């Protein structure tokens, strides 16, 4: 199934900004982040199609996953 992954802030260093790819059915957010070598304790904001999700969220065809480190502003 096709998933679009977007990375932000320091997660882009040595990786990419946006990439679509083929993933096996049943892939979770944790699987994608492991595959990108993103340390789980650095994961801050995880969004699938603009909604917050947890690591165990199972992705489906056409999902857009956005991953951010812990961030703040104001």
């Amino acid at each position, binding site marked *: 199934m096709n998933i679009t992954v977007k990375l932000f*802030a320091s997660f882009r260093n040595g990786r990419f900004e946006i990439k679509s790819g083929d993933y096996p059915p049943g892939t979770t957010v944790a699987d994608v982040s492991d595959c990108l070598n993103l340390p789980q304790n650095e994961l*801050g904001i995880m969004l699938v199609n603009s909604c*917050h999700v947890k690591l165990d969220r199972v992705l489906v065809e056409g999902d857009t996953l956005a991953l951010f480190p812990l961030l*703040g*502003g104001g």
Partner: protein
Amino acid sequence: MDKIARIDMGAAGGPKVTVGDLGEYAGLGGRAMTSLVVAAEVHPLAHALGAENKLVISPGMLSGTTGSMTGRLSVGCKSPLTGTIKESNAGGQAAQVLARLGYAAVILEGKPVGDDLYKIVINKDGIKVIVDNSLKMMDNYLLVAKLRQEFGDKVAYMTIGSAGERKLLAASIACTDPELRPTRHCGRGGVGAVMGAKRVKAIILDDAGMKMRPAKDLDKFRDANRLFVEGLRKHPVTGEGLPAYGTNVLTNVLNEAGGYPTNNFKSGQFAGSSKISGEAQAELEIKRGGSATHGCHRGCVIQCSGIYNDKDGKYLTKQPEYETVWSHGGHCGIDDLDTIAQLDRIDDNIGVDTIEMGVTIGIAMDAGLIEFGDKAGAIRLMEEVQKGTPLGRVLGSGAGITGKVFGVERVPVVKNQALPAYDPRAVQGIGVTYATTTQGADHTAGYAIATNILKVGGDVDPLKTEGQIELSRNLQIATAAIDSTGMCLFIAFAILDQPETFQALLDMLGSFYGITMTGDDVVALGKKVLSAERDFNTRAGFTKHDDRLPRFFYNEPIAPHNQTFLMKDEELDEVFNW
């Protein structure tokens, strides 16, 4: 900080300075000082630009010490924009210098007759109020350059530009940064108009010959400060994210989460967001020889700011922060960082709040004055404000008035103050704060974004109503307390997540004043401030019906979540029931 100076600008025979002890205001600083003085001493029905209003300037409880992050200044009055009590908070050098000079507050009272313009010089020898009509209608950059010829570079300046002199409701008070740029503003609520009404153009703060304020328990204070700094350095937000990308890192976050108000709150996502994101901004700043990491005052270890150079590598402005990039960017359909930086420079120069002005330009676009996305048009409108044309004066009076003058229905204001950069339909928690804070729509008053969107300090679903009232209440209480300490609010990211860093803050306060300070004391302080502010607003005529968002937030769902603001009125009325 053992004295309060009162300057009666309207005294017979010219301005009169009286310096007295703290009396009932002993131990207060920052927002606690400004709000308690305004609540006790300003008639709630006073005209904000009249002699009855007071402008209270107060460094925080820990300002002027060796404690890091302590350089925030509070300015309070009755707001000409909202009609409520107002505390407007800025960085820059002013708070540290004023605190070292020993003033817990400087209060401008009364109003002179005639149109002489004054500058106030505060140094170790006392306070002088001097007529200087050569400063008339100068804007902040030239004004500070001129004042530097007279007073040099080892002082801090607080100034108003032409907007303040014209008493425009969006007018701010500029504070100079460590490099003497007038870029750190008490922006919100028209405090610059109150200073202008009192005919004070500039306050020059010179702490030559003064020392750091000593803590009662020096060793304990030093140790607590060290732990506090360690805590800030190790937290990913205050130690990495904010220094590297500044607050504008939120553009991508809010856009991805569907809460980025676009084209005057018509959509929650902006197609041009990545071009104006914090990531793009930091890269451009570094490439042009500016900096993506800069502190607004000495002693800031987070350094969320930066230096923005133009195409030729010449200084243009400080790093426009998230709210500014949004108000002039996505809100106006503008996806160009250079245009946004130019608008930021104009705002700082004439002395207006970047949130109020940007939102106002978006309203003018909605009215058809210019098109959404019209970069040159946006700059032209700001030039009208600078020139003080009739159109410029309307725009400089803010979003509410501009919406009325041009017959716009969708006007995002609460208590006549423009909403900041988070759509309350996609982030319900911040809507609770916008609606209920004593200040008019204000994100900093109870920053529910942290928990709703950023997942710092807890996790509350931004699209649901559950937990939002309690969240906003607790944040509003904590914020009122932090705003009183002189600490930058961004420490909250670390103290919410790390109990030992919160304890270090308590120990800094305790060891400085020679008392024991607990979490309960902080809560009590926050409640005391909020209660005084609420009481003032009630006496000024505000009721629960003012604690609401504009109707379009209840009636128009917004993409991508296709949701409205869901909080019930009765729930909003519970925020201050503690």
